[in-house]
């Protein structure tokens, strides 16, 4: 469990980091907290000649409101998110999801950008980004661009980022009005990756009808997914007409690539996914109803 030899780089600016990526090509990997990458290196499941550690890039850290969105710098540690009042106020779903990431020791090092770019389908942040229709800012030698979360996650541990592209931050739209948010997941132990999980954001109009809603699914495909059919079916309906169990079933109905492993077969994950949607929906609607 010792990594293969690598050169270690610690740039102090985004430009330097992007420059290193450009010059080193695909022999380099960004290190953004290392809570997934370092174990993979130690097990030699991943081998890179160069590691570019982002820990000294100040520009990548921060939490601030920007035009109706909350910007979170990619280098912001999960523990900082967890303690942030700004996050609690502007992105309650992100706030709720954070304590479910691993253990506090992991959150002390793990970063938002690391989690999003690693793109584990069972991780919390990718599902939150997808649920909230976040936009991801990236920089490469070709300049900056913004990638919608819906286009960002492309497969198992893979994203729309180019090899020489660095994730700068994520913009999470702030939901105003009578809103409620919830995340529910089932893990075999505290801190484990979820066997299945769901995120729900819901906004009600003044007649307690669903004005808009978003349902995220984690651990139920090779990428985080949205329960689009369930969302469409719910919008415009009065909440008392909606059966959370039915929403749960509808949310997972389209899944056709549910993983299976030692811990649970696909069938089980799908059913628990539906149940997590149902529980998250119930909680989110309750919260929205109080608004």
């Amino acid at each position, binding site marked *: *469990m*010792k990594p*293969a*030899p690598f050169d270690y780089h610690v740039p102090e600016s985004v430009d330097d980091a992007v420059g290193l990526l450009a010059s080193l090509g695909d022999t380099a990997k960004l290190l953004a907290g290392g809570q997934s990458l370092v*174990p993979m290196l130690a*097990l*030699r499941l991943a081998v890179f000649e160069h590691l570019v550690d982002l820990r000294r890039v100040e520009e990548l850290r921060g939490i601030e409101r920007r035009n109706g969105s909350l910007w979170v710098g990619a280098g912001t540690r999960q523990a900082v998110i967890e303690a942030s009042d700004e996050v609690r106020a502007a992105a309650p779903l992100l706030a709720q999801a954070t304590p479910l990431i691993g253990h506090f020791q992991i959150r002390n090092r793990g970063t938002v950008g690391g989690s999003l770019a690693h793109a584990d389908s069972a991780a919390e942040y990718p599902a939150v980004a997808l649920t909230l229709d976040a936009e991801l800012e990236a920089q490469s030698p070709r300049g900056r661009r913004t990638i919608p979360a819906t286009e960002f996650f492309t497969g198992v541990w893979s994203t729309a980022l180019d090899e020489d592209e660095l994730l700068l931050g994520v913009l999470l739209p702030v939901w105003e009005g009578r809103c409620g948010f919830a995340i529910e997941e*089932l893990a*075999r*132990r*505290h*801190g*484990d*990756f979820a*066997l299945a999980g769901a995120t729900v954001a819901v906004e009600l109009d003044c007649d307690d009808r669903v004005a808009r809603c978003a349902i995220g699914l984690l651990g139920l495909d090779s990428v985080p997914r949205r329960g689009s059919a369930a969302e469409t079916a719910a919008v415009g309906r009065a909440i008392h007409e909606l059966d959370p169990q039915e929403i749960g079933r509808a949310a997972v109905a389209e899944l056709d690539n549910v993983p299976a*492993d*030692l*811990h*649970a*077969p696909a069938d*089980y994950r799908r*059913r*628990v996914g539906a*149940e997590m949607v149902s529980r998250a929906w119930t909680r989110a609607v309750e919260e929205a109803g109080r608004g």
Partner: protein
Amino acid sequence: MVPQMTGPTSAARYAGTRVHRVEDARLLTGYGTFVDDITRPGMLHACFVRSPFPRARIDGVHATEALALDGVHAVFTAADINPEVHELWYSIMGKDIPDTPRPLLAEGEARFVGDPVAIVVAGSRYVAEDAAELVEVDYEPLEPVVDYRSARDASELVHEGYEKNVAGRLRGGNKDLMAEVGPSAAHVVSETIHQQAYVACPMETRGIVAEWSGGEMTIWAGTQAPHEVRAVCSRVLGLPEHRIRVIMRDTGGGFGQKVAPLREDLCVMVAARKVPAALKWIEDRRENLMAAGQARHEHGTASMAFAEDGTILAANIVHTQDVGAYPTPWPVGTAAAVGMIFPGPYRVPQAAWATTSMFSNTAGRIAYRGPWQFETVARELLLDIAARRMDIDPVELRRRNFLAADDLPYAMATGMPLDHISPREVFEHALELLDHDAFREEQAAAREQGRYLGVGTSSYVEPTTSAMGAFGTEGATIRVEPTGKVNVYVAGGSTGNSLETTAVQLTADALGVAIEDVNTIQGDTAVTPFGLGTGGSRSGSMIAGAVGTTARTLRERIIAIAAHKLEAAVEDIELADGRATVRGTPTAGLSIAEIAHTAYFDAASLPPDIEPGLEASGRYRAEAMSIWANATHVCTCEVDVTTGMVTILRYIVSEDCGPMINPNVVEGQIDGGTVQGIGGALYEHLAYDEDGNPIAATFVDYLMPTIAEVPVIEHGHIETPGPGPGGYKGVGEGGAIGAPPAVINAVADALSPFGVTITDLPVTPASIVALLDEVRAS
């Protein structure tokens, strides 16, 4: 035979009290010395090349590229290492058993994923791992025997010469018992119960440093038994024992995994003689999960016949265990204990058993805390299943069958002689701590609201402190230094089970001195008496015996010196609080320091027949063949019937390990074992896929219970003295024996409204949902 009680003297101050552990200060401040803390001049590092195939012919091993890497010293293969082995056998089993094959490195054929094929020696572990990747092995993959359950019918053999992959079989009693008793019994209940592979997972993985210098071998080992490491090293290398020194200071948990040096340890010993400096091998976690051995993997068809009122008439178990490719030590004998203890703490007039050990192309079976615990798993699960079928509360069924005080001594139908146990008392005590009746009410109320709570119990008897062979004696040397301070030397060794605290406590009491004035030196074969180390829940009783025997000699000498100096009769001298005083004249006395000074520095003033100095060695011989301990575990839980998640609510253990030397240590042992058992019931599974690949080779997939999954464990203590020093009994293994069935029975009880029967471990959220689906479908 009336057991001789050599209990604490009237001066005992420390035995029975919650003395703080003397190990804690150094461990908690980072001053522990584990194997990986050892550094020697020019030290080299080893890494093993391991088979990626469960079974493969090895046609060649090519090290040219690896040897060319800067910093690589050597690559040794089976051809270099295996011929150096003179003889290999373990003291616990002796050399006259039909032992199974155990080559140090795979020779000709690799037999499980992780089988060591070559050992790379380099200047650092990093380089050794780089080089290991460069060693080319020509493998010709062969069809593996993955599942021990079908190994008998496999067309392939794990080892030539073992037909149908059977490593060995034993049986006892009337093999037609159930056929004869069954027809006339009111109820016969029979179930096949299966337990998954799960393992010790010590916090510190295996490790060894071996230094060959000037014809002498010095070994620093992570071990439960330094003297056994020396003995096996001597046999393997053909080196005289006095040329080998084995040192262990701190070992981060053993639980059976470190009771005997395994293939890699032996390989390092052999390789160390071929390299110019000390050689260190520290196992990493992946290796530990892949190659440090498996345990628990077995199944058994357990049957019991009952009279109309639930009285047990007969019990039978037909047991089969997976022993993997290279079991250590010989696994067949241990398996007999599963059959022989199967009747447990109950009146069972007739019993029979059979056990078969099957080879497979998986990691070899090794000892793990209560290696025979399947008897308790099978029996206690079966009793709950039987109770439900007979419509009797499982608690009531047990009450009707427990051995009572007036049944003792009692010979189990399998021949095991039980005595000095308290099955009913611990059971009732545990239920009282729970308030069983109140729980049943709470459970009923919860069910009304669609919540499913359950309670499970598990009761067992456990043979501790075996007097068998090399386990049967233990030595101690006690030296009162010239200043009156005391050093006690026992084989012992700190593997987390507080043997240092125990030795210090017992010595302080035995000599009537303050605990602060006693230090202990353990785990170094050069200075401690021979002893077979931690295993079989023997250390408490055996150290008490060794310290007691030795201290008696010293007390006599101290008293004789005091009597002589104080001009009093020997019978009038009292030894307490670090002083020898004349009974009735407390002002007339001498401190131990003054007596020690005399003994060493003023021999002329000693009584003429008294040996100078205050040092003695003694060896204790176990008084009984084994000392039985017993306990009841009670678990309550809530099951989410939608997701299958189990939450443990309360966990209670009432145990009888005799008088406690230190309740903190006893409870620590119980808690540790219990958590391992909870892991076995709900979380841990050393799984292989159907192709023979390990799929739980890191802690991402091998799920140990953590502090978040485990409730505070509540304790009850019943203290029935056993037939040994102080009446002490062993307590190291019981927690791991009793816990799995208590948890499973609690889950089964929670699900009883659905008619679910649980026979397969572990119980996972997915398996619970599958069981519920099954009963709903039928």
